[in-house]
């Protein structure tokens, strides 16, 4: 009978095993409902979405002032998505087409536009009972006038611009050039998808460029925090600097001589900033770059490429550190990232989380407000930020950034001319205005255009001026 008791004991063990197996089924199903569900419902592979879209009219996208950016109209019973504002908005809004799928904001906001992302079951029930077949309308923080103005300033050259409200993180304009007309994307797909200037990419969040001298803001921040007497130091430079056998030159027309750090920033001296960078050291420069958001995904409605600063442990020698101090070498940044950097200076060292959706309005009139500013992190203290601010004002008044000067309004800025393997340097300008009460911060890059002061500065100037005028 002993075997029988053992057998019964084993059967109880087997039963425990089944308890475990069935519990894991229930557990996984619960996990699935809580964490995976929403992602799957909104997945663009989900055929239900297309079925639903047949019956649901996709919501309208408006700009900050209520101008229509994208809407669905019915022509002879066929639904058609139109984008009245044209090319300037192509890479930002993307498209929504049964044939091509969805891209950019049309993709990112799909759940809202179809009205399927609200979690509240009572809400869903109400809509079902009332027979609502419209998605939600989305209001962006973008100013359509500003966006078009900025886009036209590129005159078809490759590049990108991001304009933020540094106090809140609201995106005021996000331009990628060349653009395209989203309404005609199906007809022109073959040309657009093969175009070597890649108009389909949103360069403002996906483009990775060496930041060049605009990165000196980060180097400067690290220096101000870590080198005690930096403001009184005088650097003498012959117009170049040699690091472990590699010669790094200042730009053509730079006058050799004695520079303090402020003047070195204004004249964008590579040789002086290399010296400062070497004094700051690998680890501190790396940490400051990460503080400013390098090597980290920016939380934003659109997926943004991660800006890169090489790990200091992998920086083989001082040459790399030297190049990093002036934004060359293996550093890469998106225009959105550089806009974040300059916003931090404008906002007293505080980086706000960028956002582009201001509010969502359901067909029943319920408003979901997304415009609450969220502090992402504090990267430098107010004193340091104000010093950098003053230096950047000097850049525009007396230095390389004169092209961004606005009469009667102090502007802070920094130019950059980023060496790259594809030809002429990329022209950069980052800045904000008014310098002592910032309302707008911009980052501009024009690919292979030459010097930043000459090519990117004027674009930034016009955009800032236009925006400040519109506020009055």
């Amino acid at each position, binding site marked *: 009978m002993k075997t029988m008791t053992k*057998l*019964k004991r084993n059967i109880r063990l087997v*039963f425990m*095993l089944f308890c475990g*197996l069935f519990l894991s*089924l229930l557990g996984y199903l619960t996990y699935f409902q809580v964490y995976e*569900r929403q992602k799957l419902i909104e997945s663009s592979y*989900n055929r239900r979405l297309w079925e639903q879209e047949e019956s649901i009219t996709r919501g309208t996208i408006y700009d900050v002032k209520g101008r229509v950016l994208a809407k669905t109209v019915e022509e002879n019973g066929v639904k058609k998505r139109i984008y009245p504002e044209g090319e300037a908005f192509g890479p930002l809004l993307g498209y929504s087409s049964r044939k091509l799928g969805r891209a950019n904001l049309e993709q990112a906001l799909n759940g809202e536009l179809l009205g399927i992302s609200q979690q509240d079951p009572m809400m869903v029930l109400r809509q079902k009972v009332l027979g609502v077949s419209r998605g939600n309308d989305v209001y962006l923080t973008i100013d359509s006038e500003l966006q078009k103005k900025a886009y036209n300033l590129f005159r078809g050259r490759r590049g990108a611009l991001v304009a933020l409200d540094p106090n809140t993180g609201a995106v005021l304009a996000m331009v990628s050039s060349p653009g395209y007309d989203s309404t005609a994307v199906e007809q022109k797909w073959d040309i657009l998808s093969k175009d070597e200037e890649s108009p389909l990419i949103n360069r403002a969040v996906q483009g990775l460029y060496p930041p060049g001298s605009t990165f000196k803001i980060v180097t400067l921040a690290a220096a101000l925090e870590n080198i005690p007497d930096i403001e009184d130091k005088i650097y003498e430079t012959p117009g170049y600097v040699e690091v472990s056998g590699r010669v790094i030159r200042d730009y053509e027309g730079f006058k050799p001589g004695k520079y303090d750090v402020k003047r070195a920033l204004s004249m964008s001296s590579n040789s002086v900033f290399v010296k400062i960078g070497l004094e700051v050291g690998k680890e501190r420069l790396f940490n400051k770059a990460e503080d400013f958001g390098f090597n980290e995904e920016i939380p934003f409605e659109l997926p943004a490429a991660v800006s890169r600063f090489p790990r200091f442990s992998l920086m083989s020698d001082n040459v790399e550190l030297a190049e990093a101090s002036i934004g060359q070498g293996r550093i890469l940044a998106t225009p959105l990232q550089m806009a974040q950097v300059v916003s931090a200076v404008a906002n007293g060292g505080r980086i706000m989380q960028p956002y582009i959706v201001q509010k969502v309005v359901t067909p029943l009139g319920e408003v979901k407000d997304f415009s609450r500013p969220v502090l992402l992190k504090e990267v430098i203290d107010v004193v340091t930020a104000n010093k950098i601010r003053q230096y950047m004002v000097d850049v525009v008044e007396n230095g390389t950034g004169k092209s961004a000067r606005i009469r009667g309004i102090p502007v802070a800025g920094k130019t950059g001319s980023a060496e790259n393997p594809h030809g002429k340097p990329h022209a950069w300008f980052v800045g904000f205005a008014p310098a002592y009460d910032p309302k707008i911060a911009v980052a501009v890059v024009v690919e292979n255009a030459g010097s930043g002061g000459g090519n990117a500065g004027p674009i930034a100037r016009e955009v800032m001026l236009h925006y400040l005028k519109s506020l009055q």
Partner: protein
Amino acid sequence: MDSREEAIYNKALAAMALMGFLSFLLLSIYRKPVSLVPFYGAITFLTIVFIGYFFTGWIFPNSDKFLFILAGFLAELGLIMLCRINPELFKRQVAFFAIGVGFFILSSILTKYFVRLDVAPFYFWAATAALLLLPLFFGVERGGAKNWLVFNGFTFQPSELAKITFVFYLASVLKEGKVNSIYRLGAGILAVTGLLALSKDLGGAMLFYFTALTVIFAATSRLDLAVGGILSAAVGGIISYNLFDHVRVRIEAWLNPWRDVPGRGYQIVQSLFSIAEGGYFGTGLGLGRPDFIPAVATDFIFSAFAEEFGFLGAAAVILMYFLLVYRGIRIALRLNENFLVLLALGHTVMFGMQIFTIIGGVIKLIPVTGVTLPFMSYGGSSMVMSFTSLGILNGLWQRALEGEDDDEA
């Protein structure tokens, strides 16, 4: 039988009838043009349920009524989904259900009066192997597995019957509580699993193998065999992953279905979309789109159910299956002869494993392997053989009660 128990049974039956009437009425109205097929189907179904219930109650006053009620309820839920997905399959499934109930009663009687203890295990093994060999020679391929036989338009899946003979084999070979020849037992089990793997029925192979391991462990208390068995299963899995394309496809579709959504990952991704769409409360009967899932009537019926009845419905189904397993274990614990205990345990484990394999598969907890969900999936062989196994459990329950009466006497 005391009246309290009777009242519980009656409540369960009433719930089942109510659920059936409401759902089939909805389906009748929902279809355009309005069709009475679901309604007649429901009447037929419920009639069979009640006839089956009272008939078993009449011939076996001590019958384990929960087994029949649970299976009937699950079959009803399966039929509701089938009726919603494809009315043609629904009509045939009602017929399969009727046959299944017949087999339930038949196998209850046979088990109660005729199961003998002295049949040599070899005969059961030979029957299993023969059943699995047949389709390899004469079978046709359906849904990637060559495990179907066709006679005059009727199709039959011998591996469903083989499950029963295999459990008999395990019970008889292990009835002394020890392994006489580990080599002979191992070879016997590997041959059976090998035959299933040859017909590309991976789910079946897994099912038979793990059922065998569990029963061997229970009978012999030998942990070394269980651990060794699991290890060799892992080794075998890795080898077949590298050797066989169809194994690799399944594993990859499980690990990352998103890499190839239109191809390898299609089925599992559609299943997940379906479950996600359902949410907690479901879209409501007839309002989801389970028809996007390939093989939704057979292997993926659970996903369809989860879409339209939601997480709550799906959890209820899982709990009902759990109760079924619980009843099976309870029967095994009440029996007093090794052979019968192992028989009850073997059938219960086979049920439990099968349920876990397919539900776990369609929710992507484990890789998908094509086995049916007992009582709910469309399919004659599965329905009839599931009821036959259940009948065996019911017959064993009768013997357990008889044994107790004898002890008391």
